[in-house]
């Protein structure tokens, strides 16, 4: 069986608003979503803003980078430096955490986040 998910593309902000190689937080209803402008790779990512380790709303203020030979893109929480894959949301520092990730599209300088 195959399920096709309906993705709603929500306008989040302007591309210029998000600092190069860093993140910013977007409000979507009651949700907080972190988006990352990975200029070095020409890529955009989005995850939940809440760090699951100690429940802090801070991931958008974390540093981004990559890990390993495959250059897995990641964000490090500014609180205790737990790192999470921006692709899968998996915690890369050995804990069992998992964060939500969202697809991102940029058109005409506008950034859209895909909400399922």
């Amino acid at each position: 069986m195959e399920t096709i998910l309906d993705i709603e593309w929500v306008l989040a902000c302007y591309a210029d608003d998000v600092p190069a190689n860093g993140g910013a937080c977007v409000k979507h209803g009651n949700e907080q979503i972190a988006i990352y402008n990975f200029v070095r790779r020409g890529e955009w990512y989005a995850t939940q803003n809440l760090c699951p380790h100690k429940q802090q709303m801070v991931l958008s203020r974390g540093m981004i980078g990559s890990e390993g030979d495959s250059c897995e893109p990641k964000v490090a929480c500014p609180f205790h430096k737990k790192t999470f894959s921006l692709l899968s949301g998996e915690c890369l520092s050995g804990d069992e955490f998992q964060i939500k990730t969202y697809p991102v599209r940029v058109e005409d300088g506008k950034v859209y986040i895909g909400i399922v």
Partner: protein
Amino acid sequence: MSQPTIVVVGNGMVGYKFCEKLVSRSAQFNIIVFGEESRIAYDRVHLSEYFNGKSADDLSLSTLSWYADNGIALHLDDPIQEINRIDKTVHSLKGTVIKYDYLVLATGSSPFVPNIEGIEKNGVFVYRTIEDLDLIRDYAANAKVGAVMGGGLLGLEAAKALIDLGIKETHVIEFAPRLMPRQIDSAGSAMLQSKLKQFGLSIHLNKSTSEIAGDDKIEFLKFNDDTSLMVDMLVISAGIRPRDELAKLAGLQTSSRGGIMVNEKMQTSDECIFAIGECALYNSMIYGLVAPGYEMADIVVAYLTGGDKFFYGYDMSTKLKLIGVDVASFGDAFVTEPECRTIVFEDTHKGIYKRINISNDGKYLLGGILVGEAEAYNILLQTVNNKILLPPNPEDLILGSRGGEGVEGAGLMSLPDDALICSCEAVSKLAICSAVNEGASGIDDIKKCTKAGTGCGGCVPLVKDLIAGTMKANGQYVKNVICEHFDYSRQELFDMVKINKLKNYDLVLDHFGKGDGCEVCKPAVASILSSLWNDVIVKQDTIQDSNDRYLANIQKGGTYSVVPRIPGGEITPDKLIVIGQVAKRYGLYTKITGGQRIDMFGAHVNDLPAIWEELIDAGFESGHAYGKSLRTVKSCVGSTWCRYGLHDSVSFAIEIEERYKGVRSPHKLKGGVSGCVRECAEAQAKDFGIIATEKGWNLYVCGNGGSKPQHAQLLATDIDSATCIKYLDRFLMFYIKTADPLTRTATWLNKMDGGIAYLKNVIINNSLDINEQLEEEMQDLVNTYHCEWKEVVENDELRKRFVHFINAPEEKDPAIKFEPMREQIKAKW
């Protein structure tokens, strides 16, 4: 068929490990655990750390949800009171009855309390559970003199705990003629004793206590030799008694001296009932350590899951740090001539005693004892356990080889593959080396993929050496590289960035790195860039640590703190009023810091620019409390007011703070200036400290408070103010250029070959011929100082970054909540 039910009695260290091992190997069982204590299993081995700031949570071995996630029913605070072996049921205190297929007894042991008159008095404690420690802590608050009965391993640990609790006078009373009679010999005990004395412990050997006297609470101890000792409290640590009462009641075979008898499959006299951990008696032995307990757990799990593994006793070698003194005993520690040849090394000056016992043919190491220095423990233990042939000069093992290849490294790599490196988790050398060959490159990696080093932690140094050894053997060059993205040490990178005049992170990464960087190299490079060029750091905000990115320290809940600079701790009434007004306007919590200034907590990120605008208008500057840079130069009031003051310490502290403010460094920097030797500014606890003398100033460097306090060392005596600043310029710049990231000056000096003598030679005698350059470089940094907050406040583009929601800049983070406390607020979290 339905799943067999396993009931585990006791949720201590071994009971928990049993569950962990069982669920990791099979989902075939229905597991039910009963624990007498009200907490989930915790780490008893590190129990004493409860007094050094670890909470009960920190000590927990897992979480309630772990039990739930693995389908384990956990009954806490509900001991089993009866086992009915005919119906195969257990009965708990609260009335639960469960039918079991297999029963595992992991009831541990209780402290042995001798039957001495007065033992029931208030102020007499045992040392086994978190509750015991709570009781001890409460009572110690009003006690001045403490004693521990028993000079064994646990007794000495309890004595250390009493010292940590602030009991100035602590006594250890031991019945035997030496300390730690099970682990070390008389000569080792004598050495240990003299070291412990230096730490303020009074030790009484050959003493047996006849009475605990006092009205309703303990007041003094009476001994058999008619002497006595006034004490306010007593901790009993006279040995352990296996908890076999439940087993006895159920008619299982127990020993008259205590312990549930088991065979090599850990089966009791009833084949469906097992006993593991400190309650189990194997071959007339109780094993009072965790590692053998874990091994026993493993054997039962193997049995239940169809494997065949047997217990044949366990090596009781131990290494521990007692009150700062290393003590280790391994293999056959007590064998004497003529059964063996013994080599002893003693250094009474340094307090080191080492003994090794060697087979008569000189080929094998049988065992030994180390007191005062036990670095060689791991490798010696491996040498015994793996029957490694000794080198021609076995004394090298304890003296270190004098000239030629180090025996340690060589010996380590020649261990057989199955050598057990981590005994808590049963990880072999092969497992660690294979992990390295498959790409693991640091201790964290190894912990993650093999679990080695995650138990008691004792093997971590050995694991690190193995990693380095394997990498070297693979031709991988091991050095202090910054991270996976930069194959250079900080010092190398510093020089390369300087020579190539690189001014931003991306350029540095393109030139010398690979990948996209990470949270380790970004701030390290950011620090190098600012130490070199002193540019406005928020221009490259996303390579800064979070605190530097927002020029404020992030707090629990996501608010920030605001710390304006108050040089030397001197402040005018008008400025105090401004701080009060700003704090009121933005609803901030205020507190005087340990660094003689004022911290305002609880600021929303959106409010930071406005708060700073007001502060800057009133003449304040950033205090760099968020940066790896100069924090404060603490001062005492000095000669202007103090009757003892020799010079004006406040003016000098202000001059120095103004000079180095804003300078970025590998770690934070703190200074102090005191007006006389009474040292009210605590200058000797700082990275640099200046103390007035009759003739000028004494300059101390490389002190540290924090978790490993260290006094600063004297660099120069009786120098004038200008010389003092010149030396400081050189010292600070030398540190900035050569230290590893996040290394305080104390650690930097500790690692420096030649130590303070070498540093003196560089700073005072110009032995590297770099002083002129160091002074110029520092002067550049001083000249290019700017207040980072001023740059932000005056620049609309930069101000715009201080928002929580990029698409709703006016809105504050709704997740942030406060609650009232003592007429101020605190973060609700």
